């Protein structure tokens, strides 16, 4: 660590980061050695300790994206735009992990990587595609405000359509394999439930940590764009003045 290195961390994020590290260690211990195996799924049940928290935070991220998008459209506040962007980016990662761990878990449990009959899995895939589209739109570039507005509309569109997609997939498949929500069916052993809650808390802490860093990066990028614009203007002005000076001397 060189002296004078500037970074987006702070005492809060370092504390958070430390908590995440400790939490992950605890989660691994609890998940692999603490929680008992399931009667039917045997040890495959240990996948839910990473799968369910990812899914939970995917949808949390979606809600934050939607709120940030709405606030940008309403208040034109750059702060909320960056929040929406950060949440969408982190949401894509959690969403991808949800799909991945879900498939990996489905193989031993349902005997298939992908089950078209599962409502939440299919809905999450479509959500993933929409979030990827939203990020692609942001990276396509253009005028800052216009990009923010476009991304906000797509973010809202995604959030609004998720319930409809869920309904349509549910009717379509009508034979869902997915477990009833693991948290509410009351079938879980106490220690399994506890581990799951630990998993969600750890993932949530990581989410907050990543949001803070990502937000600061978004803020920096914006500042740098402003600075670049300014230097370009100054250069242009300097060029113009030398040109005009040259003309008068002739």
């Amino acid at each position, binding site marked *: 660590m060189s002296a004078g290195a500037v970074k987006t961390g702070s005492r809060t994020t370092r504390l958070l980061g430390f908590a995440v590290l400790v939490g992950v260690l605890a989660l691994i211990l609890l998940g692999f050695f603490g929680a008992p195996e399931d009667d039917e799924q045997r040890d495959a049940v240990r996948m839910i300790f990473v799968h369910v928290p990812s899914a939970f935070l995917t949808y949390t991220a979606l809600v934050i994206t939607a709120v940030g998008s709405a606030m940008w459209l309403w208040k034109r506040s750059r702060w909320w735009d960056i929040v929406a962007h950060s949440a969408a980016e982190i949401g894509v990662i959690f969403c991808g992990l949800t799909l991945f761990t879900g498939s990996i878990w489905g193989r031993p449990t349902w005997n298939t990587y992908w089950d078209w009959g599962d409502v939440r899995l299919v809905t999450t895939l479509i959500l993933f595609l929409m979030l990827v589209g939203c990020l*692609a739109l942001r990276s396509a570039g*253009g*005028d800052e405000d216009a990009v923010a507005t476009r991304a906000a509309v797509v973010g809202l569109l995604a959030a609004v359509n998720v319930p409809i997609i869920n309904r349509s997939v549910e009717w379509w498949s009508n034979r869902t394999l997915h477990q009833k929500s693991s948290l509410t069916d009351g079938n879980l052993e106490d220690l399994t439930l506890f581990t799951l809650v630990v998993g969600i808390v750890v993932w949530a802490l990581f989410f907050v940590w990543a949001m803070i860093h990502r937000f600061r990066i978004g803020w920096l990028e914006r500042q740098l764009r402003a600075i670049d614009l300014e230097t370009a203007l100054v250069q242009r002005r300097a060029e113009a003045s030398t040109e005009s000076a040259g003309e008068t001397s002739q």
Partner: protein
Amino acid sequence: MFADIWLVINKDIRIEWRSRVTLSQVVPFALTVLVLFGFALDANREVLAAATSGLFWLTVLFVAVVAVQRSTAIETADGARRALLLAGIEPSSVFVGKALAVAAQILGVEVLMVGGVLVFYDATVESLPLLLATCAVATLAIAASGTLLGALAAGVRARETVLPILLLPVLAPVLIAASRAFDDALGVVAVDGWAWLGLLAGFGAVNALLGALAYGPLLEET
């Protein structure tokens, strides 16, 4: 307001009619896709019959992408968008007008496609009211979200690729619902097609509302 909407519809349809792009390019494109699906499924009558509804609506989605791209290109060229705003027409009226114009074109293509499906895939119509209602509602829903995302993609550099990746996932529920309703209307599978129609209507209403609200900010900024 209705006069403005009518004005926009009229303008778009007239431009379309004069250029004849829909007629000379989009219709052949749709029929080509239908025929190619026939090849892909090895012209197996049973498979084709079972897949007819899905293939039909998938083709409609492709047609919608092309039609929306056309409809947006009209506004982007020569800064027509700005002129439309300066003319003092409410953005929501522009949205409704453009969506209806796109819907009219897609409906026109659908009529020919139904004919194509009846001939190529050997389909039979069991319930004409359900068939017509599904076409109408699904097309309006597609046109509403298509017009919104079209305007959104208009200002992006890579707009040809951005539009499909944004539009197609959003339209997934339409594909599911319209295909199932068609299954009922064509007598392929016994499902309650009218219930699916309700879902389509819900999707259309939500997306049309969002579109009408968001169209203004999009028009102003891109």
